[in-house]
């Protein structure tokens, strides 16, 4: 397997504002290019906290503390940059255009379906209508939503069903062609059919974009991911290929969690 790292997390610790103890302790984790990496573990283990560090969305709330490094590969130069060192607003903006995020609750913007998808593109400065039309269609097709909405692109996005809204959010995120897509429990608010649709999407998308997915549903992790990281109480307990983690866990703790003994 030709494995290339697109992100590398090194000795990373994270403390929330006002907290005495860190929520993440000394995490070392590679994220491989065009693969799906799943973060699993019981509630409160820090998997969402880790995910949200990868696009520095914690910075919306002042006072948090980072330690260590999170490296992101610049695909043109091939160099790894520590994203924790970004201080300026436009550096962070560029980061988020390269590392997108899908949330647990579908978050359609209060505008039309078309404008939702075009929003990120317009932020990047694209104005040409033909170009936008093309990219919107491409993104919606990539999110398996195009056929359902192609006749009502001007409708308010909030009128879509839950599953459609989440696919809209995915389309919106991939429209800007990010290198990494972060997904924070993307199906836990959805019905089983929509969940399945999204899981299929994830498998399809990884040809284009690296995906890191947080899930509390182990079966989901085993279905969609190539690599799995098992976390517990802020620490990374075990990391490996999904096959290895689920069929042959090295640590007893991992084995217990997989077997459903707790969490």
């Amino acid at each position, binding site marked *: 397997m030709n494995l290339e790292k697109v992100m590398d997390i090194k000795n990373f610790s994270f403390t929330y504002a006002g907290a005495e103890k860190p929520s993440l302790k000394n995490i070392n984790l590679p994220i491989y290019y065009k693969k799906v990496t799943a973060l699993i573990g019981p509630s409160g283990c820090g998997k969402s906290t880790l995910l949200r560090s990868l*696009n520095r*969305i914690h910075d*919306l*709330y*002042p006072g948090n503390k980072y330690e260590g490094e999170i490296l992101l590969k610049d695909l043109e130069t091939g160099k790894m940059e520590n994203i924790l060192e970004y201080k300026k*607003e436009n550096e962070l*903006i*560029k980061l*988020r*255009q390269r590392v*997108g*995020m899908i*949330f*647990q*609750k579908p*978050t359609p*913007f*209060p*505008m039309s379906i078309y404008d939702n998808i075009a*929003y*990120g593109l317009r*932020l*990047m400065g694209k104005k040409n209508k033909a170009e936008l039309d093309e990219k919107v269609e491409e993104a919606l097709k990539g999110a398996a939503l195009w056929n359902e909405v192609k006749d009502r692109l001007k409708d308010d996005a909030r009128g879509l069903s839950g599953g459609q809204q989440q696919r809209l*959010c995915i389309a*919106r*995120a991939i429209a*800007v062609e990010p290198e990494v897509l972060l997904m924070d429990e993307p199906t836990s608010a959805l019905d089983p059919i929509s969940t399945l649709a999204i899981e299929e999407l994830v498998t399809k998308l990884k040809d284009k974009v690296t995906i890191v997915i947080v899930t509390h549903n182990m079966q989901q992790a085993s279905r969609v991911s190539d690599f799995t990281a098992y976390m517990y109480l802020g620490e990374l307990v075990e990391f490996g290929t999904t096959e290895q983690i689920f069929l042959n866990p090295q640590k007893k703790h991992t084995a217990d969690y997989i077997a459903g003994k707790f969490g």
Partner: protein
Amino acid sequence: MRLIINKIVLLLSTLAAILGLVFLFWILITLTIKGISAINLHIFTNDLVNNGLRNLLVGQFVLAFIAVIIGVPIGMVAGIYLQEYSFGNKYAEFIRNLSDVMMSAPSIVIGTFVYAIIVSPVGHMNGWAGAIALAIMMIPIVVRTTDDMLGLVPKELREAGVAIGAPKYKVIFDIVIKAAKVGIMTGLLLAFARIVGETAPLLFTSGNSEYFTLNLNHEFPSLTVAIYTLATMPDKSLVDIAWAGAFLLTLFVLIINLLGRFVIKEKKK
């Protein structure tokens, strides 16, 4: 025994509610009867100098409108600060509470304040002073509305905006405010209804004028101030005009309030 006390209390409470309704209907009915009987085409096509209400109606709206233009931007941006930029720090809490205090400040005191800073230096009453007094009253209401409505928007929506690479101010304007649009508009509408019915802040800032004028540099016609002066006149025909004005004012205010509630209810569906 306990049951008797219970029944008595419940009875008294119901009586209290009935009493409240009695007052409401008494007021509205007398207002409507006196008001409608004094309404005719004449009062809409003539100004106060000819025993009409035209200049007063226009004037009151102009003043309230200018107050909106001044007060809403200041209030909204302050509300945005409280909700989006302050993260619950002490200063923001302080301002929030201060704004609420200001909301209940005596309106006549605000009139004296504006008199001191505008009317006194200028030398005479003027419409700008009245509009500014109304604006000062409007600001805390707008702050409260904006603050509350923005607070209802779920934080995931903001995070999603940031996650796609939007700078914070764009997230606020393109996404958050849009999401809260209905609530904010209703709040502003209700605030407008509140200040359009104010009298005290106008009494010695913009005063009143009998003529139709749009010149804000001098005394400016005001429906509410006129009602106050007319109602105590010995001439009955003038008092009737006051009733007509009072009726129109109340009608307007109540319609807006009902409209606001209706809109909110529609939104909730």
